[in-house]
């Protein structure tokens, strides 16, 4: 029982440490920041980034 838990933990650890997972975590955090800055419709974000959004190609504002 204990050894099976340990092996699950080990597998999870190996999974988290794997290069694909690290890369996905990195890209997800980057993507989340991009969403917040350029694409979120949250009023505070929109108002702050209004001019930048209007002056960047491929970014919709209204």
């Amino acid at each position, binding site marked *: 029982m204990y050894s099976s838990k340990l092996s699950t933990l080990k597998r999870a650890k190996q999974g988290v440490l794997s290069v694909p997972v690290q890369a996905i975590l990195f890209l997800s955090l*980057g993507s989340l*920041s*991009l969403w917040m800055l*350029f694409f979120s419709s949250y009023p505070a*974000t929109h*108002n702050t*980034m209004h001019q930048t959004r209007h*002056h*960047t190609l491929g*970014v919709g504002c209204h």
Partner: protein
Amino acid sequence: MKRSIWAGLSGAVCLSALALSGAAASAAPRVELQTDPPLSQIEPFSEPVIFSLKAVADDGQPLEDAILELLLNTPPKTPWLTTDFPVVEGTMLARLTLPAPQGEAQFQQVPPIRGSYQLQVRVSPRVPGTFEPYTDLLTFQVPENPVKYRNLAILLSILLLAGLGGGWVIGGSQPPNPGEVASRPVQLVLSGTVLVAIATLLYISITAERAGAHTEAPTGQDNYTEPLNAEPVPTNITATLEDQAIATVGQAIPLEVELTRAETGEPISAAVLDINTTSLEYERTVFDFTAQTDTQGEFVWEQQFFDGAPHLVTVHVSPAANSSIPFEPFEFSQRIDVTGVAPPLFVRLVSLGYCTGVLALGTAAGFWLRRRSTQHAL
């Protein structure tokens, strides 16, 4: 020899056909369009552009005493490389009727986005039967603001560099220390990215709070305001300006000006209306034209408020030269609050996909470079 004769003959036929088609094209009644600044110098969502239209008859002479019915449509939708107003793409920007006593009319409009606009002009005589009405479809191209290309290049460069850095660290693949989930460099990269996300949130929150603190309280004149230099409406005239729908980005709404004599309710026809729409956010004209009231003392037009911000529509009224009801020129205005519409989720996800793709490309390149340099070192 025969071949050269045939070539000469066919060339002459082609030239004649071209000449004939050119003559036919110039013979048809048409509408000529000029812009100030020239089309190549126009920037979208910037200064207003003066559009000058001239209705020309078969013989090239301007058609006098004409009426121009205009329908201005925005460029078609571009979901794979959106403009900054995706909701405005493929919609009606304005529909209005302008008098053209000398066959010429003008209006000013800020083109909101890049792309190919369509302006449909129907030319008809003010006095029926003077000439045959016709319709001309004009298209004009508005180039993109060059600043946008520069800013996109900067953004993509930052993403590529960030990706390269991240990929370089992840590509190191050092084993973690005992008791740690990830190796130190990977921990640093992920912590650094989290810090960037936190800093972004902090910046946005603080800027939003500061902007909120500087916002002035509403004056209570949201529905009707008079400019400081307004010439007041004479007491013997009733002037109204009605927006007949809630102004929303992406939809043209009908507006109506009505002028009557206060005592009798008699309509004031053929009054000259200089109608100006100003964006209160940017304090600049976005739409401007001159029209006339009809026999009912009314003028109806449709226009789209493409920016989700308050606007001020000002009407300057003056009597026509042959007006039966003399009055002093006057001015009145109305504030129009415009409901903004968020860009469609699909459009935003497409653009986010491009940016994330560049970040991924940088990460892959960084990873590959690190692995290659490690292998070379071994």
